[in-house]
């Protein structure tokens, strides 16, 4: 460059040069940003591919599911596998009844200890290692009782009944049934399960409709293929949820804080759309009636065997975010329990107390601390809360070994003696 030459920056007027430089800076920043993001995502893609490939080859991954002529699906008996669940995994074993258990084992027809049959959905089944799940914790705390965990994800009262029948038909003796009623049971009865005949055998809805947005698709893609990017999104979403922004759509079927499955207790839901965006064909109210009817049959059949029944209700994140402690779900099952249950336990007060204890600047802390992030299931801390409440009830009203007197019927007019509501 000779003495008469000037750079383009120098040759322009000061104001123009400043504006121009600002534009150049912006372009440089954006270029760098594009290069950075592209580099990050490319690295993440290959890294995630390697990690996911090594994870799959690292153990006997599976679900231990099998088809069942009565319940549509059930767990295989004496199965062991590692089940992946939302970015982590846990060991899963079933016993000879096809129930989740600490280890593979043969369940004898009877046991010298009082035996409690647990019926429920995925929450009591536990989406974590056995010792962290609330049934595993309770079983560990009360070795004087034997727990048979007949809970299977996706089940509802139709299959609670079918499971109890299966156990009785096999001649396996038990002394109490505790049913964990899930808020999604209403939709399952209305739209997912339908009776194939008068025996109570069920079949499931053929299709599954889910509402997806561009964001939920993107989020699901990131979740499945880009582990590091997913971490970044998780971090931001956790902060937002912590600040009380209850919107979390990770592509698992909608906003975790307003899923159609759990919304019926605090808002109107669709009776026209099929599973799982609505409650067709039966509609919500008929679905609720159906689940109560199935529970009535279960109660009657157990009563015929002199087996007491207990009911537990627990909240989903959506209910904690939008509902209240005296949710329609709580009232419904408390009323149903009147005159039928040994114990009616609601976990709503315990979890609302945790929510109320969150600091003002982090009103959503309850979700981060007690639920698996991006899920409706309790995490280890949430499971501990559930276990604690159930353990208190088992201490106050200890399960008793039932005398073998088939056909003996009691005729309770109110709550059975000693029964009380746990709050």
């Amino acid at each position: 460059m000779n003495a008469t030459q000037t750079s383009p920056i120098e040759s322009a007027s000061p104001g123009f040069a400043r504006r121009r430089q600002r534009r150049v800076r912006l372009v440089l920043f954006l270029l760098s940003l594009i290069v950075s993001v592209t580099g990050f995502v490319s690295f993440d893609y290959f890294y995630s591919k390697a990690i996911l490939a090594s994870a799959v080859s690292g153990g006997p991954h599976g679900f231990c599911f099998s088809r069942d002529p009565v319940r549509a699906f059930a767990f295989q008996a004496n199965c062991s596998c590692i089940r992946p669940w939302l970015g982590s995994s846990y060991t899963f074993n079933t016993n000879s009844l096809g129930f989740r258990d600490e280890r593979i084992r043969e369940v004898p027809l009877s046991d010298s200890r009082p035996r409690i049959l647990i019926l429920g959905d995925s929450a009591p089944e536990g989406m974590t290692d056995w010792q962290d799940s609330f049934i595993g914790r309770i079983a560990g705390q009360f070795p004087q009782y034997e727990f048979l965990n007949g809970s299977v994800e996706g089940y509802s009262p139709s299959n609670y009944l079918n499971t109890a029948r299966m156990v009785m038909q096999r001649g396996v003796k038990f002394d109490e049934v505790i049913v964990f009623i899930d808020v999604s049971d209403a939709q399952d009865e209305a739209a997912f399960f339908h009776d194939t005949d008068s025996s109570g055998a069920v079949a499931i809805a053929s299709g599954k409709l889910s509402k997806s947005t561009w964001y939920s698709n993107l989020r699901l893609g990131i979740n499945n293929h880009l582990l590091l990017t997913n971490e970044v999104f998780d971090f931001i979403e956790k902060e937002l949820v912590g600040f009380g922004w209850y919107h979390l759509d990770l592509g698992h079927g909608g906003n975790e804080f307003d899923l159609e499955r759990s919304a019926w207790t605090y808002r109107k839901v669709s009776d026209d759309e099929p599973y799982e965006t609505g409650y067709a064909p039966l509609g919500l109210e008929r679905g609720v009636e159906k689940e109560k009817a199935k529970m009535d049959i279960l109660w009657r059949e157990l009563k015929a065997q002199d087996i007491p029944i207990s009911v537990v209700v627990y909240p989903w994140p959506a209910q904690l975010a939008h509902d209240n402690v005296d949710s329609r779900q709580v009232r419904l099952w408390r009323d149903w329990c009147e005159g039928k249950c040994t114990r009616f336990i609601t976990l709503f007060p315990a979890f609302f107390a945790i929510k109320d204890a969150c600091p003002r600047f982090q009103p959503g802390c309850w979700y981060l601390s007690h639920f698996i992030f991006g899920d409706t299931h309790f995490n280890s801390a949430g499971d501990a809360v559930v276990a604690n409440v159930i353990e208190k009830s088992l201490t106050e009203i200890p399960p008793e070994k039932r005398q073998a007197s088939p056909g003996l019927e009691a005729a309770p007019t109110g709550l059975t003696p000693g029964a009380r509501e746990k709050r």
Partner: protein
Amino acid sequence: MSLRVLLYAGALLLGIGVFARVRSCRARQAFLLVVSYALYLTWGAWFLAVLLASTAINFLVGRWMRRKPSLTILWTGLAFNLVLLGFFKYLPGIAVSVPLASLQKFSHLALPLGISFWTFQAMSYLLDLYRGEELDPSFLEFGLYMAFFPVAISGPICRMPDMLPQFRSGQAPSRDDRGRGLSRIATGLLMMQVAQLLGKGILSGQGVNAGFDQISGWSGPDVWCLALGYGLQVFFDFAGYSHIAIGAARMMGFTVPENFARPFTSTTPSIFWTRWHMSLSFWIRDYVFLPLAMLRRQEWWRKFCLLVAMVLFGVWHRGTLLFVLFGCYHGVLLILHRQTQQAERKLNWQPTARAWTVWSWIVTMALVNLGWILFRAGSLSQAGEMFSALLLPTSYSRHAVSFSLYGLVLGLALAYAGALYAIDTLDAYAERTAAAPSRSEFIAVGLRDRWVWIAPLWTTACLLVLTLMPHQTRAANVFMYRFF
């Protein structure tokens, strides 16, 4: 983010604000001292009491020496500092290893944070006074010298002749100071995260920490991987911290000594020790090695002094046999290097070929990195087992350390080398274009305002390191040099 980090950040922001507006030196000094003591107090009131006592006694000894410089007063002051350091730093270790009932009560004595750093600062002040340096700090200035919050916890070790004029300056930090300081802090934060990643590994329980603490039956390649991995870990951790300390001081307009200058590019052990923990190695050179070496002119004495200086370097970290061996090892390396240089001179051989430099670098790095085994091993037997694995040819056919750690160490070493190369290339290009301005506006702005395009790269690198770190152990982040 811990409350203490927030407090330090708040203090820094407050400091920048005060130094931008307040011109009175006294007011500035008083402000800095109060903030420094307040922050130090968060580590424990007892720690602050020890620091205050040391400050008061060293100030009085210094004043005494200014009036009447004598070797007796100097030794009184040095003895006080050595006893203080020995009492807190070495007595608990002795109490654990010596089965004497009267010593047992000292076995759980808490080590005041940064005592090794500010005690060495106090000793250098007394030594400088004895040498005739014109130092007349007020009590306020001396207190600040001892407790200056960016450096009080883990250095760099400052010297009074450098700091006093800065304490007395009423100049406001410039925009350049703030910019450079911020970039140093950003660099430091990234480096410290990289150190945490190396410690924990990409996969849980497969980092350098687990490699040393949870594995036995190492193979030769494992030991090399762990030695290099730990070398990088301790470098990123301490150099990262030093960047933050230097950057924080710079943002308030202070220039404190550098601690690291690309030590992994050193081609001889001597060069390495002018680039690694420079504030300590220069302290030992100026106040231990040179005064000792000048007592006698014989070559063997100089070599002996070198050995003594390096043992002191090792023992400064911790008073264990492994650290004595670490010092001896490096002392021997320095002596061997001297011998090699003497042999070269005798033979009148001046190796200039690039290949020789590369070879020298490889040998230096291999030897320096092997030294980290003594620095990091949990016991003498562990260090012995690791060195044996190195010498056993059959062990080179297997590995006990996870491949993910091999990949991580190699990847980070290459990334670090790449970053250095990129910085050098940019600097060289900037120099060339300064002489003959580029016609491209993009290049001109890109070279001048590097933060514009470095900021997204830095953010991405931080995100990458943070997301790669296994979640379950993320809470246990600890700065390693805090324990020295």
